[in-house]
């Protein structure tokens, strides 16, 4: 009898120990798994929300694209109207404001345009386009140093963009800082050897630096790329240093 009781005790102990062993493992494993599942779920939800937002954003992108097209085709008033609609729908939209501002520049309403550029950059400081047009507008108004600041911003966002260096170089050339202009324009041509505007301004800058040899060399390279140098620039160069190309 006593032996039986002992056996029962031993079995009970073993069961308790094993039970403890496995329930605790279960607890641990279950918790780890649940945590993992929960995190994955959260992450997935977040991702899905992001996707939904992306979809809505895509529609707005299309609208903004039509604003751009209207600006490009000279329909500035229509563009402004459409941009206003977009901004009503999405008050945070930066690009619509940028194109709106460009349309205003085309209508020579500079002050309003500058205000809009600033608003656009405030909404989204990551749009290189905004800074490009903002800079071009400032340059148009002769505010070259401010324009250069904007090109610098654009280049931070798109460091491989040849346009940024070209505009920067052009602004420097306008300010008479030809040496610096040459550096920026050379960089622009490194990035894009088919940049016609950069060749033109570079030739002009060399011309002002009286480095005719380099100027002619640049003209030759442009010709090789089948690009035209503005006739005025070329004529000036011819006059100063005949016998180039």
């Amino acid at each position, binding site marked *: 009898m006593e032996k039986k009781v002992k056996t029962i005790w031993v079995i009970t102990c073993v069961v308790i120990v094993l039970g403890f062993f496995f329930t605790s493992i279960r607890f641990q494993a279950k918790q780890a798994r649940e945590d*993992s599942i929960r995190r994955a779920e959260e992450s997935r939800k977040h991702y899905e929300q992001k996707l939904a937002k992306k979809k809505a954003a895509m529609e707005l992108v299309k609208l903004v694209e039509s604003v751009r097209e209207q600006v490009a085709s000279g329909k500035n008033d229509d563009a402004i109207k459409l941009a206003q609609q977009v901004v009503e729908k999405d008050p945070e939209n930066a690009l619509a404001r940028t194109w709106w501002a460009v349309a205003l520049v085309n209508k020579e309403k500079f002050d309003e345009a500058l205000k809009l550029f600033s608003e656009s950059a405030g909404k989204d400081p*990551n749009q290189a386009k905004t800074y490009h047009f903002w800079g071009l507008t400032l340059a148009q108004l002769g505010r070259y140093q401010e324009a250069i*600041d904007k090109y610098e911003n654009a280049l*931070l966002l798109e460091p491989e963009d040849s346009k940024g260096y070209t505009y920067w170089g052009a602004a420097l050339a306008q300010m008479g800082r030809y040496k610096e202009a040459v550096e920026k324009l050379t960089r622009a041509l490194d990035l894009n050897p088919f940049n016609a505007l950069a060749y033109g301004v570079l030739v002009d800058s060399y011309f002002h630096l009286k480095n005719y040899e380099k100027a002619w060399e640049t003209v030759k390279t442009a010709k090789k790329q089948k690009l035209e140098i503005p006739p005025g620039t070329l004529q000036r160069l011819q006059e100063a240093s005949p016998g180039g190309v």
Partner: protein
Amino acid sequence: MTSLTRHPFRIAAFFLFFVSGATGLVYEVVWTRQFTLVLGNTHYSVATVLTTFMAGLALGSFLGGRWIDRGGHPLRVYAFLEAGIGLYCLAIPFLIDLALPLFQSIYTHFQNSWVEASFFRFLVCACILIVPTTLMGATLPVLGKFVSRDAEGIGQDVGTLYGLNTLGAVAGAYVSAYWLMRLYGISSTVYLAAAFNIGIAVLILLFLKKSPALLALDNLAPPAQEEDVKKLTLREKGILLAFGLSGVAALIYQVAWNRIFSLVLGSSVYAFSLILTTFILGLALGILTFSRLCHRFRDLGEIFGYLQLAIGFTALMALPYFGSIPLVNRWVYLNWGQDFQTIQWANFLTIFALIFLPTFFMGGQFPVVIKLVARRLDSLGKRVGQIYASNTIGTILGSFIGGFILVPAVGIQNTLMLSILLNVVTGILILGFVSQMAAKSKWATLPMVVVLYFLGTQLVPAWDRAVITSGSFMPYRLADLESALEKKNKILFYEEGIHTTVTTELAVTGNIFLKVNGKTDASLAGDMRTQLLSGFLPMLMHPNPKRTLVVGQGSGITLGAVLRFPVESVDLVEISPAVIEGSRYFGPFNHHALDDKRVTTILEDGRNHITLTEHTYDVVISEPSNPWISGVGALFTRDFYELLLGKLNPGGIACVWIHTNMSPENFQSIIKAFTSVFPQVTMWESIVGEDYLLIGAREPYKLPYEATQSLFQDPEYGRDLRRLGLSDIRDLMGLFIMDQEGLKKFSQPAPVHTDDNSLLEFGAPEYIYKDERNVIVRQLTPFFHGRPDLLTFSGTDAETRENVIRQVAALERTETQVKEIKRRSTIDQRLDAAMEAVNQNRLDEALRLYSEILQLDPGHVLTYFNMGNVYRALGKPEQSEIAYRQALKINPYYVYASVGLAQLYLSARQPGKAQEALGSALKLLPDDPEMRTLLGVALVADNRFSDAMKEFRRAIASGPRYLPASFYLGMYLADSDAGEAKKILSRFVDRVTGDPRYKNMEEKARQRLKEL
């Protein structure tokens, strides 16, 4: 009686038991290896084998003791036990093979119910291992009965016997890893151990036959009767319980020490073996010493209690020093050199210094408890069995509680603290209830012990996470230790999981890296190209991959690359859940691969999954690549590749990533294993001298030109590749080295790598301290040829096709690599030059250099951050803000840019914006003292003084070494609480005096102190 004491065979019996201890441990090591191959190299599997092993020993000692007390010749019984062990152990490898279908069916049917799966696995293991382990367990009480001839000398005799057995285990642990398995392979090791067991049996039986006098001696003790055996008294039960609890504590220590040592000394097979060896050595010496001493003690109860306290307090004393092991490692490399043997010795000394004393006292308990509980010869066997069983059950519980509950729940250091507490409490209870101490002295000493414990724990500082995970066990990563000491990196994620410790760190360069047990496993730098290519290459080569398996998550970059293709499902097998969590910080770089609905995460060992799964795959990618880490070697053997081939669908492709941190011969052995299984193989060199990819299949495969080109033109993935110097098919084909013909020739001289010889497991750890990668590169070079025939074209016009073929045929060996190396070094040069320009205040020049870097790598986070700083210094806040934001856009976890932004906003008097910038960064790193301090400053600027003070105090609490927090707290507190401000500022001044970094602050603080 005296005749036996003098009989030479009694001495021989002690020696034989030493040998049997050695074979016992050899079996344990070998079985763990063999079972982890089918159960997975996880803590669960190791615990399953260990539990079965221990349970068998406990059962054996319990049953053996009872049995031998009833009669029988202990020596003869011992001989039969040894013979049984030897014969059975020879059969175990075959039994494991026989059980494979069982394991497979458990894996398939209980994949979602982990508890049942574990239970059945445990059951199968138990069925296989219970017989030999029970036999092993029975040997101690049986032989104990033989050597003990005198009730007075019980503790000494059995203790000495057990001590020698444990010493044998020390030899077994050492010899198996450093000698037997390394030189002769696994099977031969088992044969040798079995031969020893059987030899012992034969020797004893022969001797008994020749010397019948011994047999007669053997029978001197009268067989005990059941009713003669006195029952355990309450006191004895208490002692057994205490000994059981001590067993719990012992294994908790072992688990926790294993974890911390593998973190600071590496997770190679040698490190584990050294820890085990030292642990058992301590035990053995403790047992032997106390066996000799215990008859001199008057009150053994008191000694038992003191031993418990000694274990606890010696472990507590050692606790802070674990955090300094990386510094010891550095000292060893610098003063003793980097030779493998020297470092093994140094590691042994480190481990010995820290754990010898506690383990010594642990061992000391055994003879004391025997002497306390087993006082009569007639019931000796039974009592020894009970003692052994109580301790072993404790150790089983301890291994389980330590590994599965405490370490993941409270961390390694707190686990050790709790274990120490358990020892201290047990010690106090023993001294209180078991010892014969006078009541007065009890009241005088015991509360003191409690106070001492709490004071002691207060004095132990928390280990520095950055330092312990700095990977200081690799001499070539000493720079990481330096940056850890200087707190250069930010720890984004730290988890001491069930299997491993995982850290995700952010460096100021913008690189994020994931470390497993201190070893960097994935990052955004260096091996990024391999991570992408191991996904892209096999997926491009398979015409229509539907089901894919990726082994190892790492950063998830490979998984992201696989998901770029229209696969139906991807099984991701990752052994450690903590790695999955740690890898979430790579989400922005792996295209949020873990969130993709096609991915199924399986938390298993890769080898185990491939062995047991019923699924077959079109593409299998195996990423674990650090061959010196214990267990990883099993993913590079012929046996594994055979399993892999078996799981491939027709037309299926397997891709394996191999490192070069090994001997050139081992490198060839892996290739030989791979080519001996896969008929069609190509080898690609992702990073010269570092990372290689082996791609194998049954049928021939090619690289489709159009699909590859479309990958390069992909706006996101193409950009990823361009950032790594791969912009077209020519660059990619420049990485191809050779196909199966070349590989067979290349690997011919080396032996094939198999599970049995485990060449990598034992060979690769030496190459942590040695570098022969240049030899591998030199050996590979003659095999390189441009191979346009590997490309297939469909739809590309003939002119382009011919052009591509011509270009690929004309490729030079190092063309792609050199291009990338040049690009990287140009970036580095520009960075250095820019830094010099900044130091010389030529800021415009620095900006020019930075913009050049951005043209080479538009995603260079550090450059944007530096530009932000330079623009801030130039007083151009608009540009500075854009630069910082660009850095954050590329790497959303780059908190350095958030700090930069906050400083920018603060100088522009926009505290609200500064708080916003810091708020998001503090969500990532809530305890960062620098950011907390800055937030405090921003709050002061917002006139929220009390909140600001809270932030400063929190900064001081989380980073006492970050001194600016004290400065600001003192300065701003001066108006409201001059007394405290004075105290804080004078302490600040004391600490920073003479430090040029804090010169300005020091002056201001002195000024303010004068005013106060």
